[in-house]
């Protein structure tokens, strides 16, 4: 069958603004479980239009390069198989760049601010016994479990791009950076707690910016409990 890929395009070097272009791909029924949206984008780029622009890397959900908006949901193109999309008779797959970030070209967004927020989350171990190594640290399996889910984040941006609060205020750390803040603060090897909590205690840009829209929870391809983690941070801020 023919599947239509309806792709939002934007070329920063013309005055056209953004527009939508359809590309057709012939896909056999049995291939729907095998072909991913990323495979389709690569094939379109190679065979039909080499100027189609998107990011990709590992091809299996590890590097976080390929998050885009597919049929109204932020997802990793490399992990989205065509049969995940419940294509109706129209068999249209709509792909556009992540919302919430400025578009650089076609499906590529500018994530500079996203990574600036990631840096503000202090993604490292710190405190008094900072890098006391190289002796082995002790961490119980239970202590590891506390942070394990948060370590799975691949910085794809799907969550933050789905957050209405972030759309309004890019100073707000957003779910990804807050998950990162939790992951490093709660690591048993880290002992800088109070300063980190104080930095998160901000009405607009810190934990209190979260209005619990829950979009992030739905967007995360790693199914990280973003809202639960932000709530835990809020509790820590209150009790500190």
């Amino acid at each position: 069958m023919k599947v239509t890929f309806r792709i939002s395009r934007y070329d920063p070097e013309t005055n056209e603004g953004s527009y939508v272009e359809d590309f057709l791909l012939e896909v056999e029924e049995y291939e729907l479980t095998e072909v991913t949206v990323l495979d389709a984008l690569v094939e379109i780029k190679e065979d039909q239009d080499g100027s189609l622009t998107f990011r990709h890397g590992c091809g299996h959900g590890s590097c976080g390069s390929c998050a885009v908006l597919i049929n109204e949901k932020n997802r990793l193109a490399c992990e989205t198989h065509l049969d995940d999309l419940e294509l109706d008779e129209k068999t249209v797959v709509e792909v556009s760049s992540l919302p919430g970030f400025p578009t650089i070209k076609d499906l590529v967004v500018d994530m500079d601010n996203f990574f600036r927020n990631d840096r503000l989350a202090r993604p490292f171990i710190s405190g008094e016994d900072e890098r006391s190594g190289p002796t082995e640290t002790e961490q119980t399996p239970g202590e590891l479990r506390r942070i394990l889910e948060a370590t799975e984040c691949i910085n794809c941006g799907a969550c933050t791009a789905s957050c209405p609060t972030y759309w309004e205020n890019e100073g707000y750390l957003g779910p990804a950076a807050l998950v990162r803040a939790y992951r490093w603060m709660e690591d048993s090897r880290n002992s800088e707690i109070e300063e980190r909590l104080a930095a998160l205690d901000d009405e607009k840009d810190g934990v209190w910016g979260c209005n619990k829209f829950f979009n992030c929870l739905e967007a995360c391809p790693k199914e990280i409990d973003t809202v639960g983690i932000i709530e835990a941070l809020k509790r820590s801020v209150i009790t500190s």
Partner: protein
Amino acid sequence: MEIFEHDLLIVGGGAAGLRAAIAAREHVDDVGIISKVNVLRSHSVTAQGGISAPLGNTGEGVDDSWRVHFEDTVRGGDGLVDHDACEILTKGASGTVLELDNMGVPFNRTEDGRLDQRPFGGHSLPRSLYAADRTGHGITYALYGENVRLDNAVYNEFFLLDLVADGARVNGLTAYNMKSGEVVGFRGKSVVLATGGCTQAFAHTTSGAASTGDGLGIAMRNGIPLEDMEFIQFHPTGLPGSGILISEAARGEGGYLINDDGERFMKRYDPEKMELSSRDRVVRGMQREIERGKGIDGEDYLHLDLTHLSRRTLEEKLPTISQIAEDFAKVDPSERPIPVRPTAHYCMGGIPVTLNGRVKGSSWGNTWDNLFAAGEAACLSVHGANRLGTNSLLEAVVFGKRIGAVAGRTAEEGSFGKLPRETLNQQEKYLTELREKDGTVRLGEIKSRLRELTWNKCGVFRNQSDLEEANDEIYELRRTFSEELTLDDRGCKFNTELRSALELRNLLEFVPAVLLGAYKRTESRGAHYREDYPEKDDGNWAVHSYVVRTNEGRYGVDYRPVRNDTGRGTTDEGGE
């Protein structure tokens, strides 16, 4: 045309580049990291299985020591390991890995809170530390965090175009700033190339889109030889089709390889070590089974059976590969075996360097003053002819640290050289020409022809006539690229087609070194297997190959002996 300036420039933000940047800060305050993808998307994040260190933390491993690790690595390398380099690697392993622990890598733990270790092929004791099967992700993120803490400058999505060299000195680099669309310059007092692997050169590969050997291509164009490029490691267990890796950790945790008869066929090829035999043997065993029609349903793949492992093992130790099996092979590994086949995985060869990472200009050892290489892009000959799993992340961090420190010291003692505007203009002109290529052959077509060529004629099994043909065809592909290529994207900003063309140019530059090395080496050793010369020939071939490109674009090969008298010549960071 902007020019940036840093005492030390590091190209590449994978495990090697990030570790080097941290170490360099002991000597210089101003370090700049340049990466064609956001550093957190570097290929290192996808490393799954683990990183080795002889800590001896588990019952079975208590007798481990650097010496046992050294001996395992030398044995695995099949006669081509340089002992002095391997000694540095294994002696440095425990300390460097414990630093990673202190930096916050989420390594799995034993019940009593120590670092857990699991078995891996070729290692005689359980030695692999692991963060589930996301070890590379844990390590890269922790190293990145340290760089954030140290406030090192990071230039994401800047594509290295060329070195700006002045004799045996490098004054800086030119790069394509993807976002702004401009050619920019970087001036530095010393430069480290940590540009990673190159196995995108093969049709079936576990590596991500960015592993195109750019550093290798750029080295060749600057007259730097490449060492041991015929030694490409094929990994036994990639998914058929996509090539996505199912980590060796699956076999380390007890998985079986099964043929169409339901038989654990490795008993025929290595009855003692079975599935945990060295990668080259497992791959050849698999390939033989496929050739004798024992692939599953007669097809070119076999089965990796994990159904006898406990659910807890799958969930806590192999979660990613369980997910990958479900997403990409549509198999629940607790219920059904996973289809697997050999795929290109790692390059043992690379840019030849001294033990301190200084780039060599030739096989007889003249070196560049202030140009260094580290990580998978470099060849320190610690892996010899065949790398053991978990040893390459280790190499990236042990030598990343060591080389970063020496490069930092070199920068501290050095000064800035000239970076003439003209070099930027030349690159700008080249990019414009490339963008406007208007021939008849599409980029994707040349790339897939190249990748099929290497796979079919210089893959797991090699022979003279295939390699002869391949040597001719590669020149034809090089010609097609320069004369007949066409590109669609004429834009300057974020032109990913242009970037792919630059990558393909680099692939076409170094692949002849792989083919020539393989053609000349008339023996079988480690990952290099010649059907027409199936025996190892230590009398003639216990040597490292050096392929160099002449100005006329022809390739020549030269050799140097292996350094295999243990202990001799080991230099510490003080001298060379």
